[in-house]
C-alpha cells in the first residue's frame, strides 16, 4: 500500500496505541494511510469531496473500533475491508448521477466544465478511463481498483471482500472485459 508517511513502526503497535486512545498514534496512522484510502475511495466514487467525507468516516471507524482489531489479519486488510464496506454502502445508499461514457463521448463529447479542466491529452484520457471505471458494477469496480491501483493480490482482495479466490478472479476478469468492450470503439476512432 502506497503511503507518504512511514515511521517504520509496525502498524500493529500503532493500532494498539490507538485502541488506548493515543491521539498521536492515530495521527501517525492517518498520515500513513490517508493517501491510499482517499485514492481508493476517489477511484470508486469519482468525486473528491465525497471521497474526502467517506475517507474521514473510514478513519473515524478505525478510531472507534481500534480495540476490535485483534491482529489476525494484516492491518491494511482490515483497513481496506472498512474502505470497501463504506464504498459499497455509499453506493447502495445513494444513486450517483453518472454521466454515461456514451454521453461524454458523443459530439461535443467532453462537457464544457470538463473542457476547461482538461488541459492535457493525458488528463482527457484519464477522465475517460475514470468514467469507464465508474460505470462498472460495484463489486467488479472495487476488485479492479484494489488489484490495479492498490496492488493487492487476489488472495488479499478475497480476504478484504469476504469472497473466494475464484470469485475475485472472475470479478476482475469481468471488469477487464467490460472495460475492453468500452474502450474498443474508442480505440477504433482513435479517441483513446
Amino acid at each position, binding site marked *: 500500500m*502506497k503511503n507518504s508517511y512511514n515511521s517504520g513502526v509496525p502498524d500493529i503497535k500503532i493500532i494498539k496505541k490507538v485502541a488506548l486512545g493515543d491521539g498521536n498514534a492515530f*495521527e501517525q496512522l*492517518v*498520515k500513513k494511510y*490517508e*493517501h491510499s484510502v*482517499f*485514492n481508493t475511495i*476517489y*477511484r470508486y466514487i469519482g468525486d*473528491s469531496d465525497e471521497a*474526502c467525507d467517506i*475517507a*474521514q468516516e473510514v*478513519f*473515524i471507524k478505525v*478510531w472507534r473500533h481500534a480495540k476490535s482489531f485483534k491482529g489476525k489479519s494484516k492491518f491494511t486488510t482490515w483497513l481496506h475491508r472498512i474502505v470497501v464496506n463504506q464504498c459499497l454502502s455509499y453506493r447502495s445508499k445513494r444513486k450517483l448521477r453518472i454521466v454515461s461514457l456514451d454521453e461524454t463521448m458523443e459530439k461535443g463529447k467532453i462537457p464544457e466544465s470538463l473542457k476547461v479542466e482538461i488541459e492535457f491529452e*493525458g488528463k482527457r*484520457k*484519464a477522465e*475517460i*478511463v*475514470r468514467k469507464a*471505471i465508474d460505470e462498472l458494477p460495484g463489486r467488479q469496480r472495487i476488485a*479492479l481498483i484494489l*488489484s*490495479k*491501483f492498490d496492488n493487492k*493480490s*487476489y488472495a488479499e482482495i478475497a480476504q478484504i471482500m469476504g469472497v473466494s479466490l475464484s470469485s475475485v*478472479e*472472475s470479478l*476482475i*476478469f469481468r471488469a*477487464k*472485459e467490460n*472495460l*475492453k468492450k468500452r*474502450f474498443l470503439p474508442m480505440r477504433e476512432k482513435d479517441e*483513446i
Partner: protein
Amino acid sequence: MRHIKKIKLSAFLDGEVSPEERAEIVEHLKFCPFCRREAEELSRVSDFLGFVEDVEVSPYFFVRLKQRITREKSKAVIRLPFKKWARRYHFERIVFPLGVTACLFFSCLIGSYLGKTIYTTRMEIEVEVSDEFADVLSMEIFDSHPEGSLSSAYNNLLLGEENE
C-alpha cells in the same frame, strides 16, 4: 489446439497463476496467435488504467478529521447512555414520536381534569363567599340595635313603612 481460458489469461497477466500454469501459458502463447491477441487486449486495458493518476489529499485532512471526531464525541456524550437501547427500539423513528404523542395526550387529559377541578372549587368558593356576603348585608343585622339609636330609628322607619 485448445485455447487458454480468458479468465486464466487475465490472472496470468496479473501474476496470479502458479509457476506451472505460468510456464504452460507462456509456452502456449508462443504458438497461438488467438490467445496472444486476447492477452494483448487484456493487457491494453491495464495500460489504460495507468492514465488514472493519484489525487493529492488535502493538507487539512487530519485537522478536519479531528474536528469531526470531536464534534461527534460531544454528540455521543449526550446519546451514549441509551444509544444501544435507542437503536434496538428504533428510538428516533418509533419510540420518540410515540412518546411525544402520548405526552401530548396525557397533557390534554391532565389539563382538562385540572381545569374542571379548579373551576368546581372556584365555583364552590364563590357560592360560599356570596352566602357570607349576603349574611353580612342582610337587614337582620340591624335587629339588635339599641333603642333610640339612629340605626334603630332607621329600622323602625323601614318596618313602619312596611307595616303601613
